[in-house]
């Protein structure tokens, strides 16, 4: 089983020779505390030394250290493998708190809730920017240092690599047998020995043939003839380092693209009820977050009309009754390019006029009409009610500022399929419109919107208002089904829950209440760039991890007995599990199978 000559104990000193085969200018440049394992397991383990070589280590002890030396020392520290590793681990740790505490960026309501639940702790955490971890000073400091280190690392390496790409493969080592992957074949058994008469000519022919074969399989080759022993030195796998540099550079690319590109974009939210439309202008958005460099003249004007929002719920599978199956928003877009109908679905955004339109939510928008005691309409609108659970129990607010004796506000609950809990409270038992019921608690007084302070349309500030129905008032809440109307308390007027399908059968409510869709509209010019860099990251990574970088030598050596043997040796540069097989295979193909 143990047949290779390498299993003989190798003489001491092989290491030095191997080292000389290793250290040449074509090797990729590495920080001084780099270790690819080739020094043996005992090299440098736990030495605790500073990263720099002798020079900087000596500099540490020297009391007189000029500013330039300090800078150079600091820079070498920052661009060492150890610092990169430390910063990577710090980055991982620093990312953790953001998953434990709600973040303003992704969960603003969660933050508000957190402050309410932990009034003592929350301000302290806030002082450490724990609710904005990923934009915090300390998180930014870590990744910026990491990227400075990264740039400091890749710039000199790229320069070095570009030179190495033009360099010649290193000289053939004197004693190939000391390398880890080594085998030999007698020259006499090759065809060269038969076709050429003399031994030196045969050796020369064999080496030429080896050089050609190596070149053909992607090696860069160089002939070296040492003391009458013709040899070829070959190296391949420069792509490994190329891949590594592409990978690291693309990381910088992603960061820059995200940082800069995001600044030119925007995101806005808009709720649209069926039949209504929205024009892509700043004022039309319910909320709008521009990037740092965004200017609103960049908004391409177009009109988006929500024709229909179709929601499909599971009706057959008993384990999932009422589970949402599909949401489709049918929209019409009018703009410079004319008018066109489109569909927007949850996983299928619409890309139009440089903006991306996403369907992020939907619900019901009951149409509510309020009349004064004379029967004149003072208010009518479809009000989006925000869903509170999977069966779309929804809450909405109606504000009637003008036309009645007093301002009134109504807090409404909408149940698409109303049923009653054992406690007597209402709930919705199915998300579709089977038995829709709207309840309204009516408040009268000052809505607080006259002073011009902005108020959320989804909230009613009841301070300074008197509750007229529901709660502790002793008066039942207003309770309506589509098409019904009733008197408001105190003779204020009437309120009607309008049906969208007055002609439908009495028990068919399926289309009686309009739906709304909430759209996110984005523009992010960095996206394409990020994708390009992401592809480079994956590509570079695969090259860097899977392309073996190896050297191969073939040498014709004359033995004391006058015969000539062909020596084949390989040296790995980095992880290369296939090296020995490769050397053996090459020797088999070139020098014949081992007998």
């Amino acid at each position, binding site marked *: 089983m143990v047949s290779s000559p390498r299993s003989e104990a190798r003489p001491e000193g092989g290491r030095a020779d191997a080292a000389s085969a290793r250290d040449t200018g074509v090797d990729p440049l590495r920080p001084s505390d780099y270790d690819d394992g080739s020094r043996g397991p005992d090299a440098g383990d736990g030495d605790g030394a500073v990263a720099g070589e002798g020079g900087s280590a000596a500099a540490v002890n020297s009391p007189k250290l000029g500013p330039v030396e300090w800078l150079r020392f600091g820079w070498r520290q920052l661009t060492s493998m150890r610092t990169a590793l430390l910063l990577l681990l710090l980055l991982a740790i620093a990312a953790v708190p953001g998953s434990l505490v709600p973040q303003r960026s992704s969960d603003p309501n969660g933050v508000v809730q957190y402050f309410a639940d932990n009034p003592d702790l929350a301000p302290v955490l806030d002082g450490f920017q724990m609710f904005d971890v990923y934009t915090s000073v300390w998180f930014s400091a870590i990744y910026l240092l990491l990227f400075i280190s990264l740039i400091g690392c890749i710039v000199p390496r790229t320069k070095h690599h570009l030179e190495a790409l033009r360099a010649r493969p290193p000289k053939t080592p004197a004693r190939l047998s000391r390398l880890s992957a080594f085998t030999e074949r007698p020259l006499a058994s090759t065809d060269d020995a038969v076709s050429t008469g003399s031994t030196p000519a045969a050796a020369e022919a064999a080496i030429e043939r080896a050089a050609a074969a190596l070149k053909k399989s992607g090696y860069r080759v160089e002939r070296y003839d040492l003391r009458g022993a013709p040899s070829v030195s070959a190296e391949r796998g420069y792509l490994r380092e190329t891949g590594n540099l592409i990978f690291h550079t693309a990381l910088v690319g992603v960061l820059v693209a995200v940082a800069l590109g995001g600044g030119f974009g925007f995101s806005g939210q808009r709720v649209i009820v069926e039949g209504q439309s929205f024009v892509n202008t700043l004022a039309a958005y319910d909320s709008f977050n521009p990037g740092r460099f965004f200017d609103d003249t960049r908004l391409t004007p177009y009109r988006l009309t929500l024709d229909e929002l179709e929601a499909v719920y599971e009706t057959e599978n008993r384990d999932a009754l009422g589970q949402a199956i*599909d949401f489709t928003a049918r929209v019409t877009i009018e703009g410079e390019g004319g008018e066109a109908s489109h569909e927007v679905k949850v996983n299928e955004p619409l890309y139009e006029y440089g903006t991306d339109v996403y369907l992020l939510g939907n619900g019901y928008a009951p149409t509510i009409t309020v009349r004064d005691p004379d029967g004149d309409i003072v208010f009518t609108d479809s009000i989006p009610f925000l869903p509170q659970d999977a069966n779309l129990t929804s809450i909405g607010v109606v504000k009637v500022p003008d036309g009645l004796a007093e301002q009134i506000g109504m807090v409404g609950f909408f149940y698409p399929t109303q049923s009653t809990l054992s406690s007597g409270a209402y709930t919705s038992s199915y998300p579709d419109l089977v038995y829709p019921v709207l309840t309204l608690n009516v408040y009268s007084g000052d809505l607080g919107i006259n002073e011009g302070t902005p108020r959320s349309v989804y909230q009613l500030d009841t301070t300074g208002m008197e509750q007229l129905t529901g709660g502790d008032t002793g008066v039942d809440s207003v309770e309506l089904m589509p098409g019904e109307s009733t008197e408001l308390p105190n003779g204020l007027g009437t309120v009607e829950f309008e049906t969208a399908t007055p002609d439908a059968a009495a028990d068919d409510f399926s289309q009686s209440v309009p739906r709304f869709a909430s759209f996110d509209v984005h523009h992010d010019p960095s996206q394409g760039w990020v994708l390009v860099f992401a592809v480079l990251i994956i590509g570079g990574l695969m090259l860097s991890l899977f392309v073996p970088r190896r050297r191969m030598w073939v040498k014709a050596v004359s033995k004391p007995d006058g015969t000539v043997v062909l020596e084949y040796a390989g040296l790995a540069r980095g992880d290369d599990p296939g090296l020995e097989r490769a050397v053996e295979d090459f020797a088999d193909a070139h020098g014949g199978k081992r007998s």
Partner: protein
Amino acid sequence: MTLDEISIIAVYSAMAVYAVAFIAYSIDLAKRSAASGATTVAETASEPVGVLAGAGATTATTPTKAGGATSVRPPQAGDAATSAVAYGRSPVLRVAVAMTVIAWLLHLGATVLRGIAAERVPWANMYEFALTGTLVVTTVFLVVLLISKTDLRFLGTFITGLVLVLLGIATVNFYVSVVPLPPALQSVWLVIHVFVATTSVGFFALGFALSVVQLMQARREAVAATADAVKKSFLATLPTAAALENLAYRVNIVGFILWTFTLMAGAIWAEKAWGRYWGWDTKEVWTFIIWVVYAGYIHARATRGWRGTRSAWLAIIGFSAVLFNFTVVNLFFKGLHAYSGL
């Protein structure tokens, strides 16, 4: 009987067979301890570098296999003690592998049936993630057994044990009946992103096992080098710590590339479904953390003072984060990825 019910019966059968395989692997480890005890110290010490003599019937070992195949180094003082003890053919190990293959077939059947029953890919909730994830762990293990030049069957105890525990938790705690996909999951990216994530977990699991054994082996080697005696342990029959480290590295880098892809595919999907490619959602945060930890691991392997034991710890931390991400984050953390189905 519905297809889903047949699938569950297949899962239970697979678990039973995995249990048999687990026992067989354990017996093998016990036998290895005995074998290493029987080998005299002198015999061990005289063994040439890296001769992993016939550790198994399937290995065609060449001499360097056990040593760091990529490094050029002369024999070293420590090597004699670290080289493997001969461990001949083991019938019980063959039984164990055969049982693993049978369990794998049942497991595969169960997973495929679940997919047919649901009329979609069988990875859309916790139960299905666990079912498919463990299937991939076993698959990766079996494939690596096939292609690896080093005999890695000794990892069977860990692999079958892990699969058994996860399947147990999945069937008892995570089971949900077949329900349709919510709109957010109706995407080709469910097929790609989740499958690639699951596959990379398969590789990380194997890498984790190798790193754990590497640490145990490194400890034994450290003791053996000083005490000049080989402790009676199954470890004596296994590859050296250096060889285990190289193997772990190779398995982990495959996992890392797949994880990188997972992260990017997830970002593309998030862009389609939520309108932004990255938003530091809890699940995104943990995917990122895992990615950075494994990047750290790869760096550590190239950093002086960090090769060997310390980098192995990073691989172990990385896989712990993977498990944490799958269990605790899925079940208890608030976020957009609310797909446990529980």
